[in-house]
């Protein structure tokens, strides 16, 4: 499952760098695309605006296949309060832009699974694939607009995964 999560994140990160190279952030002193995996960063109550935060939630295994089929739910949390120069009046437009970017990121629908625990990363025998995104309603939090997109990611558990 960990290989799937890592491969999915890197597929999304590469996609974001292509879709919108300007969506970047500085985290732990490094500038990188504006997407991060919540569980891989410090557990500080920090909220970065205008970036995608991936949170893995549900997991189920279907054993009625030659290889166990893992099904994981990944949530994309993102919010914006607009830009300071526009007094935040553009927050709806910026959230719509993030919606569109996420739709484009998820269009690929599949990626090669890799093992990142070894150097260099080793390609695995199977791929991961995911559903179309399901978008929750906009949540108005004072001057912030928040949304959560959900996608289900599937992969076959190889011997190296278990």
């Amino acid at each position, binding site marked *: 499952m960990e290989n799937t999560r*890592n491969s999915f*994140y*890197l597929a999304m*990160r590469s996609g974001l760098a292509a879709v919108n190279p300007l969506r970047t952030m500085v*985290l*732990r*002193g*490094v*500038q*990188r695309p504006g997407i*991060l*995996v919540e*569980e*891989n960063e*410090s*557990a*500080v*109550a*920090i909220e970065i605006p205008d970036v995608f935060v991936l949170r893995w939630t549900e997991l189920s295994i279907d054993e009625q296949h030659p290889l166990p089929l893992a099904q994981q739910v990944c949530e994309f949390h993102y919010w914006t309060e607009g830009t300071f120069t526009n007094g935040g009046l553009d927050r709806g437009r910026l959230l719509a832009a993030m919606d569109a970017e996420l739709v484009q990121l998820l269009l690929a629908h599949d990626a090669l699974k890799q093992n*990142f*625990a070894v150097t260099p*990363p080793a390609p695995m025998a199977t791929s991961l694939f995911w559903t179309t995104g399901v978008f929750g309603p906009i949540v108005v939090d004072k001057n912030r607009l928040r949304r959560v997109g959900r996608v289900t990611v599937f992969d076959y558990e190889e011997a190296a995964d278990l």
Partner: protein
Amino acid sequence: MSDLSVRLYNEGQQRAADSLLRSLGGFSVGLRMPVPAVTGVDAEQLGLSVPLFQDLPLSPAAFRKVRTPIEEGEAGKHELVLSAAAVAAAVSGQQVASAEVLFAMATGMVVNGVLFLIEATSFTEWLGKVCAYRVLLRETVPDAAQETVS
């Protein structure tokens, strides 16, 4: 009658706050900061690298337990009052925009060798300048788990 006089700022209140903190023990704490990640290394973003940290000493400080009702399973909370001058020096040293950014970047606060998580920060100001910072801390592990039997 309101005070409409124009008063020039001086550092008297900040020095008074520092004096008060020193009189309470002049405690020193460490703000645990992650060492900047390595550019271009995927393992840094996948949780595969062993992170490195550095503790920024902040002094004087006063540390006290927050008197809130104790509930089963709830971690204890503590309050830290920090010298604004010490925080300003750390902000300058780390080359960050503000104290808020500095606290947001920190992993926690080390007090007497024990790591606490930062829950919230606030400050006391006078004439628009910060005199002291208040930091609400939460225990990362219960006190009992840190006790050793000799």
